[in-house]
């Protein structure tokens, strides 16, 4: 089965990860018998691919499903349906025993540096955990690998014996990166790795991630809610709204020629560090609707400044309107056939 997958995708050989129609519904239980009363549609049919060695930025408001998407890809959350192919192999259907060796290739860096390290484990042991689990090297070799990883992220080997509470937020984030790196993964999901950090530390960590990418040829899925950060690090950018992907394009294309009205609104919210520049802000009406009961048709239509009748009735397809530029919007599709 997996052989077919590899052959089928050989034409697009540079694709590392391909996500197809990924869906994650969280059941909402209630009442006396804890019956399922509704579903939160956190991720609702998302498809995209990530090329080897590139960084795909993923932006969207809080609660739009970015984090759920990132974790479903790694099966830290079991998706409801859909496929995730890593180097052609579908990892959603894998049994736990098959999945374990795959985990070496796919790692994750977390948002909160204060909860991502076990407070009772010295950081050296935290970093070595992956090596122990996958039975890599002798004890001495592992120690060496840990010290090597610490140095790569800009910490001292002596730090291995210390506990997480002895480090600052930025240092902890680098420890988290070292833990992900030590298994020499190909793909890393960066789940808002700098959102919890001071601006001065943010750039340190971003530059570290870039340097490591160059050094080891890493592929990143970089989740963020800050467009400036995404612009800084991404090769391509995807925009999510309420569990759906609404636009996906290369960084230059997306920032020069944003097509989806939601992307336009996001762009207009980026502060420009020049008081003389005047720009029209697109202020969205209302709040993000509940993913429990998303709007009919295009999910963005109640807040969309250019919505027409069809938007509330039919869900727009995620179409490739120009090479490498996908948009899900009736207005764009009709304007640019």
């Amino acid at each position: 089965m997996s052989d077919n997958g590899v052959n089928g995708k050989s034409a697009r050989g540079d694709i590392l990860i391909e996500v197809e129609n990924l869906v994650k519904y969280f059941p909402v239980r209630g009442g006396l018998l804890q019956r399922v009363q509704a579903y939160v549609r956190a991720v609702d049919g998302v498809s995209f691919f990530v090329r080897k060695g590139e960084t795909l930025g993923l932006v969207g408001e809080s609660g739009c499903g970015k984090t759920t998407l990132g974790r479903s890809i790694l099966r830290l959350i079991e998706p409801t349906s859909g496929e995730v192919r890593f180097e052609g192999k579908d990892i959603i259907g894998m049994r736990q025993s098959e999945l374990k060796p795959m985990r070496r290739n796919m790692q994750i860096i977390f948002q909160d540096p204060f909860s991502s390290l076990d407070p009772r484990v010295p950081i050296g042991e935290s970093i070595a955990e992956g090596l122990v689990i996958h039975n890599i090297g002798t004890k001495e070799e592992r120690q060496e690998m840990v010290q090597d990883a610490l140095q790569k992220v800009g910490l001292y080997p002596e730090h291995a014996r210390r506990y997480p509470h002895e480090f600052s937020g930025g240092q902890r984030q680098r420890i988290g990166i070292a833990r992900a790196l030590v298994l020499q993964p190909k793909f890393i999901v960066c789940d808002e790795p700098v959102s919890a950090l001071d601006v001065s530390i943010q750039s340190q960590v971003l530059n570290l991630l870039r340097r490591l990418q160059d050094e080891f040829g890493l592929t990143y899925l970089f989740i963020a809610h800050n467009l400036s950060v995404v612009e800084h690090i991404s090769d391509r950018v995807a925009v999510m709204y309420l569990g759906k992907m609404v636009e996906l394009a290369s960084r230059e294309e997306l920032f020069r020629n944003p097509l989806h009205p939601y992307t336009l609104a996001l762009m207009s919210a980026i502060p420009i560090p020049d008081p003389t520049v005047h720009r029209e802000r697109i202020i969205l009406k209302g709040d993000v609707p509940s993913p429990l009961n998303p709007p009919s048709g295009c999910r963005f239509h109640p807040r969309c400044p250019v919505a027409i009748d069809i938007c509330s009735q039919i869900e727009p397809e995620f179409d490739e309107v120009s090479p490498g530029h996908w948009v899900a919007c009736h207005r764009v599709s009709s304007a640019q056939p």
Partner: protein
Amino acid sequence: MDLHSETLLTMEEASQLQLVWKRFRRHRLALLGAVMLSIFVLAALFAPLLAPPVPRGANTTKVGLLPDPTAIDPINQHLPPGTKGHILGTDEVGRDILSRLLYGARVSLYVGLMATLGSESIGAIIGAISGYYGGVIDTIAMRVTDFMLTLPLLPILLVLSAMMAGRAPTAFARINYLIIILVAFGWMTSARLVRGVVLSLREQEFTEASKALGASDVRIILRHMLPNAIAPIIVNATLAVGGYIIVEAALSFLGFGVQPPTPSWGNMLTRVQDYMFQNPTLAIWPGLCIFLTVLSINFMGDGLRDALDPRMRSERVGGG
């Protein structure tokens, strides 16, 4: 390099254990409790050396110079404290009270510590599994826990220990049966406690990090859940030790725990009712031992809770 300048701000090397000890030391009462408990434990361990030897020929059945808390001496009943050879006097059948207290400490402390070890371990395992897996497993485990908690403990203990009494070949086996019964009905509190802690730990990102690294559930529970739940477990354990010593005393007092002539602090109190006015010290000594042991363990529990409190640690971090 600016990357390294941050490291200068980190604390001096200090292991977790040293930090805990440092904070524990500051707690005066806890330290007092620890010292008192150590004295009791040492006294129990070295009972054969500390107890006065039985004078040759004093006992019709046992002859020798070994201390023997069961040696009966009908001539010397109810000797007052301070009598030569019997510092704390003798009881209603002429047994040396100090000997009985020392050997009784062995039984009481053994029951208290072993029952605590057993019930905390079982409770921790059940609680960790229940909290970590959640769902149906959690529901079943917690309903069973609730059910066990509703059972009236004392009548059940009385019935079970009476049933087990006939099957125990030796006094020691009987004590172990008693411990098993206490564990079987004592794990619920710690199970609930650990479940609560694990429920919150499960949502922390380090749990997901371990999963992403490929860690098995067993590894995550043993390496990450239980070590982080150790603080409430230890605190609960210190309270439980005192509780079990009292339950043992209560059962023995009612005649269903440790059977005479084997001394325990509880069964030393049993016969005292009849001699309350004739020789009140008979009640005072074992009562005082139980009281001081439970008190010292509770003091220690207070100190340990403070020493292991994560907020104490976050205070240190708060500045950074």
